[in-house]
């Protein structure tokens, strides 16, 4: 029969494994988001191109391209930069810390 201390360690260990799973899920979610943004900006550009090919007046095409597409793309890329340079590395760092805790509990 395991002691209370051992029981507590087993519970904490299970929780840590679950927390690592959740963080891995978060990383996948954020990576997926980055892919989605790249696809979205490509599609935005395609819309402008199709509208131009269908004869939409030049002034509208120019504004959509130079003002809206460029700005929206820049804003979306700012979020992607945060995700790739901060959120994902932080989540990975946290996984490493949790794995260390897990190993020390198993010893």
């Amino acid at each position, binding site marked *: 029969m395991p002691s209370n201390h051992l029981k507590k360690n087993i519970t904490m260990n299970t929780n840590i494994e679950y927390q690592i799973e*959740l963080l891995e899920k978060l990383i996948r979610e954020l990576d997926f988001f980055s892919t989605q943004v790249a696809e979205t900006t490509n599609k935005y550009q395609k819309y402008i191109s199709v509208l131009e090919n269908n004869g939409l007046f030049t002034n509208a095409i120019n504004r959509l391209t130079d003002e809206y597409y460029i700005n929206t793309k820049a804003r979306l890329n700012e979020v992607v930069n945060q995700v790739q340079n901060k959120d994902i590395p932080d989540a990975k760092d946290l996984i490493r810390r949790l794995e260390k805790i897990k190993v020390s509990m198993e010893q």
Partner: protein
Amino acid sequence: MNILKGDFSAEGYKLGLNDATNGNKPNKKGVKYHWEMFKKGFRILNHNQAMKTFSQGYETGFTDGLRKREGLYGNKKESELLNQKTNTITMSSNPENLQKQIELLNSFDNFLSNIQTNLNNVNANYSNLINELYESGLVSEYANKLKDDNHASFQSQIAKVNQWISENDKKYAKKVIGQVQDAL
């Protein structure tokens, strides 16, 4: 892949993602088939654990793949509109052409709304995962950083992008729709 730990979730994930993005049907037979093919290349030490992680990875990948198909590639109508061939730049005052422009601009406006919906969904998923981490008993120092630093900043950026799209891109798209309608 982490063979020593018997974790094959990453391999399952890739295959699930691939199946869903290629429009294959989700079924247990699909997972089993992939597993049977995959395990031939390895000497699996902990078979049950390995197959379990592979299946879980496959299901997660399949879900992401479905979202990718729905979210990124849009609906059939949108896809048809964007892939229609046009001969040349025709006269924009042609009524038929103006109708087509309105149809495209309305589709563009829906596309902008979909971007906002997708951003909100990612933000909600981020928030839910942090809540789950709290509930699982993650050390409060770590959980607070994720919530108050990482997610708070992400959420703020998402809100700004959504506001920008509403007040600029969508507003201008509607204005142009009005101008083209006036020309009809």
